[in-house]
């Protein structure tokens, strides 16, 4: 299926304004696994006939990892550059499939002059379903054991726990919760710029511990809502040599698959 992915520049040329900007993020743009999530989300947007646009080559890293690595200069340079472009295009609403971008755009850009309504893709998709613009009819995941890993930057950082779970419910799935979930969910180990470095010395990797949490629920699928969590959990499942039995999927992928998109 051909994806329709217009850019802001194209909208501008036609003198139009999209309903919402899709912030793809660096992982979603370049990482092979995350690109699949990006595409699944676009398929859903296309299926719902949403007027959206991306910045394309005008998008740049939000600066989350730099900020959390301690480089406030680099973060603010990135932020100011991005805000200049977003404001030039008069962007009001942004949706992103990355909780890190979500958190940064929503919480850390305003005081630098970037004020937008920002949604995580699970929130946005839930809204589309509620408004009847996106229809989920196929319940092909019914009966599967699915657990949900809360991304820290969606859950604790921004108190969004229900949107992803509501979407899973739409798919006819009863989430099998891990012992540590929602408020007490354990991190996958990637946040705070850990994604880009080797862990400090210890007796286990965080993603392995979190994968063990997930395995205790005996799942067919581990669902999540963050490209970094996805990588960490996928690696954890491989480490446990369970990749033949257990899939790690983003909620957008589950929705797209169930609609045969």
């Amino acid at each position, binding site marked *: 299926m051909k994806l329709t992915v217009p850019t802001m520049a194209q909208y501008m040329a036609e003198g139009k304004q999209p309903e919402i900007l899709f912030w793809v993020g660096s992982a979603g743009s370049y990482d092979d696994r995350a690109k699949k999530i990006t595409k699944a989300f676009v398929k859903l947007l296309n299926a719902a006939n949403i007027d959206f646009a991306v910045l394309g*080559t005008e998008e740049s890293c939000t600066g989350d990892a730099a900020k*959390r690595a301690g*480089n406030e200069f680099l973060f603010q340079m990135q932020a100011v550059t991005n805000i200049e472009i977003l404001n030039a295009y008069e962007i009001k609403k942004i949706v992103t499939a990355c909780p890190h971008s979500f958190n940064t755009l929503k919480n850390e850009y305003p*005081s630098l002059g970037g004020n937008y309504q920002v949604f995580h893709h699970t929130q946005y998709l839930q809204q589309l379903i509620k408004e009847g613009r996106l229809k989920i009819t196929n319940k092909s995941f019914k009966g599967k054991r699915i657990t949900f890993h809360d991304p820290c930057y969606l859950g604790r950082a921004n108190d969004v726990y229900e949107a992803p779970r509501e979407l899973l419910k739409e798919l006819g799935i009863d989430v099998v919760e891990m012992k540590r979930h929602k408020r*007490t969910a354990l991190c996958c180990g990637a946040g705070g710029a850990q994604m*880009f*470095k080797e862990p400090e010395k210890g007796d286990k990797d*965080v993603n392995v511990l979190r994968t063990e949490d997930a395995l205790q629920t005996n799942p067919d699928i581990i669902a999540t809502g963050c490209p970094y969590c996805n990588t960490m959990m996928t690696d954890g499942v491989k480490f446990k040599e369970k990749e033949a039995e257990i899939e790690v999927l983003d909620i957008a992928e589950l929705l797209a698959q169930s609609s045969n998109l």
Partner: protein
Amino acid sequence: MNYLPNILFAIALVFGIGYFVRNVRKLIRNIKLGQDVDVSDNKSQRFKNMVNIALGQSKMVRRPIAGFLHVIVYVGFIIINIEVLEIIIDGLFNTHRFFSGIGDLYGVLIGSFEILAILVLVAVIVFWARRNVIKIKRFWNSEMTSWPKNDANYILYFEMVLMSLFLIMNATDASFQAMDSGNLISQYIAPWFSGMAESTLHLIERTAWWVHILGILVFLNYLYFSKHLHILLAFPNTYYASTKPKGQLDNLASVTKEVMLMMDPNADPFAVPDEDNDETLEKFGVSDVTDLNWTQLLSAYTCTECGRCTSSCPANLTGKKLSPRKIMMDTRDRLEEVGKNIDANKGEFKNDGKQLLGDYITKEELWACTTCNACVEECPVSISPLSIIMDMRRYLVMEESAAPVELNNMMTNIENNGAPWPYNQMDRLNWKDE
């Protein structure tokens, strides 16, 4: 009439309270060593947080057993302190059970104090067992060296002794027992002393009374040196804690100024800095306690060393050196050291060649944090160890360029390509056709 006991009592009271005030002053002085921070926003939300979290103990009860027992001790302590008021009046004015004049209500009051006292006693014994017999893991992490462990036990012993003295005092008070109202618990203790001469009984009662009130005064003054300070500081700390989403890190204003200048095409790069605004001495991030803001220092004194943070920290759970509780304990220890230094040097800090970063908290600890906010979520008194970790990382990176190599690579990539990986910015939309 013999006024000696009253005079002695007044002296003890003045010393006890005087020394406490001195400690509180020192505490405030030390906290004020921190940087200024604007906490004037969201007053009603802050007030609500304080009422719910400090007064209402809403976060304590998330761990039901410890939470339930803690509520007993907390309520018990607050309410039984009404009794202290009577003790002070009796002590100063040579009265005996001054409030007993209020009639039946007195029995109800003392009766409930007695029940609370026995409940507190039981709760405290269970607490002691959790630490010393069951050895719950979070009380035995490596930062729980001998002092923190002893401190916790001393507090429990104090409470056991104070509660027992209260009950003994009531049990040996012949006139109170004769009233037979409110002696709900002490009536069962009184028989232990039966057969004793009235004078002996009186002596025991007086001794219990004196040791009880002196014990309270000593305990009051012990607070400053102990994690027990949280019984006071939990209130301001929950009030001043951040009301923003937990994921939101502050944007350093000093950096914003420079970034705006760099991005401004009209700015003259060779301009001589304005004398008044000369902030060349501005330090980015935190290397010592005086770089932290005062709410962070307040947090350090508030920390109860309960270890709920550490027991939920992914880094700590996987054997890394990082422990958010240790971050708070180190901050307090260093702040105390700085405070003592100032006291010893006539109000001026004399460089001691030490700092929080390196001498207390190592880089290895700081780099292990995933910024997951589990510690912040868990803390029953709204402390953010994460904010201190982040501030110190900022110092490492912006002042010392001391990030791990891989992180430097990541940051170079962002600078050059607008992504943490070495991909070409022009390829950013390639995914749509792949």
